[in-house]
């Protein structure tokens, strides 16, 4: 699921989708804005594999778990992985 497998095409693998999200996230954006831009980018770059919203949210979860994404007042923003995690740890 996270990496491509026999049943998961490389363009649907969560790391790949997450990379695409990070790449688009050049400034803080709302979730829907990010979602819209991702769909736009994917259709513009020949990624025609269906991508439901929940799969997109799952890729966000991965990024969050990796500590490279955080949700700050309803805005998604990138953060450096080696920086101190927001809240918790």
């Amino acid at each position, binding site marked *: 699921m*996270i990496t491509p497998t026999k049943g998961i095409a490389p363009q649907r693998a969560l790391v790949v989708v997450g990379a695409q999200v990070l790449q688009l996230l050049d400034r803080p954006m709302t979730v829907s804005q990010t979602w819209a831009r991702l769909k736009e980018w994917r259709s513009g770059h020949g990624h025609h594999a269906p991508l*439901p*919203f929940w799969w997109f949210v799952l890729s*966000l979860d*991965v990024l969050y778990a990796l500590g490279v994404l955080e949700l700050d007042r309803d805005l998604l923003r990138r953060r450096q992985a080696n920086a101190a995690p927001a809240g918790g740890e």
Partner: protein
Amino acid sequence: MLRRLGASDHRFRALQFRAGLNILVADTANGSRDTDSRNGAGKSSMIELIHFMLGERSEPKSLPRQAVLQKVEFNLTLDWPRLPEPVTVHRSGERHTWVRLHPAPSGVDQGQLDLGTGAVRNTEWQRLIERDLFNLPEQHDGVSGRNLLSFLIRRVSSAGYVSAVHGHVRQADHDAATNLAYLFGLDHHLADRYRALRARENARQQMQKAAQDPLMGRIIGKVADLRSEIALAERRVAELQGQVDNFHVVPEYEHLRRRADDVDQAIRRLIARDTADRRNLEDVERALQEAIEPDISYLEPVYGQLGVILGGQVRRRFDEVEAFHHSVVRNRRRYLEEERDTVRQRLADSEAERGRLGAQLAATLRTLEEGGALSALTTLQQVLGEQRATLSALQHRYEAAQALESTRREITQARLSLQDEMNRDIEDRRGFVDEATVLFSDFARALYGSDRSAYLRFEAAPNSLRIEPHIQSDNSGGIGSMVIFCFDLTLAVLAHRAGRAPDFLVHDSHLFDGVDERQLAAALGLAARTAEREGLQYIISMNSDDLDKAGRRGFDATPYRLPEQLTDRYEDGGLFGFRF
């Protein structure tokens, strides 16, 4: 009656005329050389001067305007109808457009007076002559005093002795005939219609020539072509007229049209935006449905796999990730719902706005449809005016072309009917005509005896009234001159009897050139008798040897000779008293 011909120059031999026959004699002076001739003694000059004094339009080459004479003021004294004393007229070559009259006849047009000198324009003098000497009415087309005088005072210089029925050589047939008709008491109006017809005929021929010219022909055109052009032009005019009549002016038309354009643009922009919004709305709604997905059981295996794959890389604990996930999904739903509501609201607003704008556009367009701008009406009217002008020009050309095509026939018909009318008129005036014929034939018999047939014939010819004097000829010389003599005498007698001409008749000595001495003596005798009987004045210039010939045939000239006698004596024998 002419009484005296004089001049301001004292050398001029003033001529005193009397009633009846007057003979101005040109003599061969004793001691004159054979090479001297009496030509230039002044016999013809007398006639030139009488014409000059009686209002002739003076040509630059005429006698009184010669350099040596133009300062001389000539004068002629003559009896004037309805005036107790004779009128004296003064005129000089230098100021030939004016005459001085003393006393002035009544009814001189004050506007024609030169107030400085009391002089009268020559044209006014001509009018007075026509009115008083010839009794011409105000309207007398075709008859003029000058033309009438050319019969009573024939001139050698304008070939007056060539034809009896022409006063001078340049006189056209119909012109001469009209003036003669007046003197003979025929209907000169009828005779003048020949002139009018002649003028029409000339104009028609000119036009026809012009119409045959390829370029000029286009100006006139053909009746058939013009008729169809007129029909087309009339239809165009009617159409335009209808448009103008039904035209409804919309105030501020241009402004309204711009507004309609703006509204249209606004509606288009709204529609474009709506399309985008609807697509968005669909997306949002689909996204909402997807976002409702409640099952989050997959999170755990994903997280597990994450830990397997990335190992120490995973920074967050599972419950943190789960909280993040819920937060994203919850917010996401709110966002989507907000967005959906916004878009729905915008679509609803847009629809209302479009409805409003649509109604406004429809109203504006209806107004625009109903009428046009004032400027459009003005243009329409201008075009209508142009079309009307074209139509009227075409109609004029049509009339001209039609007239041209029909005048030939009309003129021929008019000529025939005129000829008929003229012949009837001559028939109706049999009395006058017979009187003239009888008188002429009496005069001819007095000259040639009763064995010669002589007649005067009046006949309506196709182109003019023809007056034909005839004396049977045996080729004896000078018979043409005697025809003129008898003709003029007849004319003078009849016209004077009827008050249509003054009482004088003047002939030049050339009339008797080549005339047999028997006829010469008879003619002078006849002239003297007729003048006395009719109260006429007959003035003739004559060479002394011709007079001698007449004397030998029993004509005693003594009582008729003018006291002044011209000679060919070189220096001072002539009429002017000096040679030039």
